[in-house]
């Protein structure tokens, strides 16, 4: 089996972009589900970049595609071999569902690929029964980002809940006077894979309100001001994983003393 996969890997054309690892890839496509089965959550998500003819493994996105809708893929090329899902791997990677782009659902059989056995790792939170360590001071003005998928104000599971939990733990310890929650939207139109895409400007406000509502529940009584800005510029922040588009689609929670 291993041998077969290695042979298959050799037979695959090496994509131009993959040769240069860490390169940013961004395109719009209909996703393909590969029914690999190594237990729960082990299936593969693939998406073809029509411009280059390259099929990428986009399974490592924290927010996975819906096979009935298009996705905006944003990711970085890696040197990882294509043996989990049968395509070179983008990591880090994001796949945002584009609900106004209908797709024909397409499922490939496993064809010998194992997918990836699920492991709890990365950005996840402990149950409430596990006490959070108190972050050390001194405490001073600080901003915490929360990131979103394209076109969405939905809190991404095992990404945003982690970021929010971390921010709230710090805020509980630091006791700032108030919070300013600013939503941003990537509302400047861009052409990707021949499509003009832009986030609606009101998404900036919705994002701020969504996060402010959760903060009111997590930190009852704290003073919260919401603001919003469109045309967010990209920022280089570690939790955006080096994906410029991700850093544009954010909310900033600023703690003021």
């Amino acid at each position, binding site marked *: 089996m291993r041998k077969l996969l290695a042979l298959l890997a050799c037979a695959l054309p090496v994509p131009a972009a993959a040769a240069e690892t860490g390169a940013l890839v961004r395109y719009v496509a209909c996703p393909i589900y590969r029914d690999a089965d190594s237990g729960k959550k082990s299936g593969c998500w693939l998406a073809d970049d029509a411009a280059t003819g390259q099929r990428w493994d986009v399974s490592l996105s924290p927010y996975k595609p819906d096979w*009935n809708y298009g996705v905006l893929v944003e990711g970085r090329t890696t040197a990882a071999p294509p043996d989990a899902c049968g395509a070179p791997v983008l990591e880090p990677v994001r796949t945002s569902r584009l609900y106004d782009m209908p797709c024909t659902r397409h499922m490939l059989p496993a064809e010998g690929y194992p997918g990836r056995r699920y492991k709890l790792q990365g950005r996840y939170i402990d149950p*409430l029964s596990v006490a959070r360590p108190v972050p050390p001071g001194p405490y001073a003005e600080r901003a915490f980002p929360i990131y979103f998928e394209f076109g969405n104000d939905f809190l991404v599971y095992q990404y945003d809940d982690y970021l929010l939990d971390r921010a709230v733990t710090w805020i509980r310890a630091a006791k700032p006077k108030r919070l300013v929650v600013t939503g941003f939207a990537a509302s400047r139109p861009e052409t990707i894979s021949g499509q003009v895409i832009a986030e609606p400007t009101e998404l900036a406000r919705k994002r701020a309100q969504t996060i402010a*509502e959760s903060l009111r529940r997590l930190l009852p009584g704290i003073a919260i001001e919401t603001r919003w800005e469109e045309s967010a510029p990209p920022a280089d922040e570690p939790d955006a994983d080096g994906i410029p588009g991700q850093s544009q689609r954010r909310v900033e929670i600023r703690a003021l003393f």
Partner: protein
Amino acid sequence: MRGPRSNPAPHLGPVLAGLATVALATVAVGKGPPPRWWAPGEGRVFPQQLDYANAQGSLRVLLAGEPVATKGHPFFEPLGSNGRACVTCHQPADAMSLSAETARARWDATGGKDPLFAAIDGSDCPSLPQAQRASHALLLNRGLFRIERPWPPKAWNGAPVTPDFSIAVVRDPNGCNSAPGHGPAAGNISVYRRPRPVANMKYLLAVGFPFDPKQGYALPLDPDDGRMQSGNLMADNRAGNLRLQMDDAGTTHLEFRKRLTPAQVTRITDFEKRVFTAQQSSRQGGALDDMGAKGGPAHLRDSEPGALGSIGEPVWSEYAAWDKLSPADAARLTPEQLAFRRSVARGARVFRDRTFLITDTAGINSRIGFGNPVRNSCVFCHNMSQMGNDVAPGQVDLGTTTMPFADPWPDLPLFRITCLKAPHPHYGRVILTMDPGFALTTGRCADVGKITLQSMRGLAARAPYFSNGLAKDLRGVVDYYDRRYHIGYSEQDKQDLVNLMSVL
């Protein structure tokens, strides 16, 4: 006649034949056998332990702490005008729910005069001739009560909710969505639901994590004590805590015109939190807490609620010891008992480990980003240790009430929902449903058909299953999932799952 009695699954055949007699008799507790049926206001003392025979063996009800004198107790006294008490629909022998079988037995025993059949919701619609059995068909055949919800929706505090969908009545076989005073135009919608068991409550109230990952928010706060709410009460989660739930139950089911007093609220809450129930012994497998197994309600009573099976005690590992019975233990069992116990242990593994593709299920495949489809098992949704409900708020659209996944039941109303903003990600702009579920609380078309996962304990005592009684028996539950998700269970897998569920 429809219902569990008319067409028993083959493996239940011999048991059901004898059930009519068993169902009305009570397993003796103490000296004389007290009646199986708890009538409102009868004044019995609720003991620390009750056992009731059922088709699969027997159910045990445990009351933590001291026995409760039910005389004058607001859970047991008829508070309102129709003679019912909470216990009318939450019967100990039926795992604190009410089986369709019991409803039929009450009809037969009382000629339909039991307050259970009160016009308000124990009939298909109050506008029907109440003396006729046919007017109570949904309760008698499917164990369903009428639930009337305001339209447009209202929040728990009466605040108006602006829905992002419109609703039209496609079919109204009972009149309660179109007769004068009824239906969306008159400001209400009637759906039909099974009573949810009032037991093992600490699990339904437990808060595991501070977020609702399905809705994408931190958990809402309880208006009474400011703490986070579990989001696991009621099919549509219209009540976030027990106090709001009992106010709702009082004014509707009991036709109680006053508010419950704080003292009554405290007494009902105290009772609800102390009742634990589960199957205690199996007709085929014997005692369920035997040879290392931890079946029965004592383990439920004694465990910490709210743990995720994937990081703590695996779901249904209560029966793990039966997977590796020692030859000495095995020799002490009859071949039938041994085979059954092994089947239960396998069933627990099928429940946890046998994966399938979950598709087009809002709450799992959208908006949360697990992917559509996502490969997982029964335990993905039924993930809480000991209980099998959802640790997170459990509003998921399995399709049990919504077309095309539900059966086209002509005796239930059908609504046409039109999403006014974004279409529903899986159904599109127009949805046909018999019960919009959670959407009747949130007013969101994305929530149409979502039903809160319920407890999985005491199943043997409370058929039929699912919020609308879609599955007449446990085999019906497995068959529904097998069809819905093209699982391809073998006959052995199905029987193992049925056997497992029969001993929860």
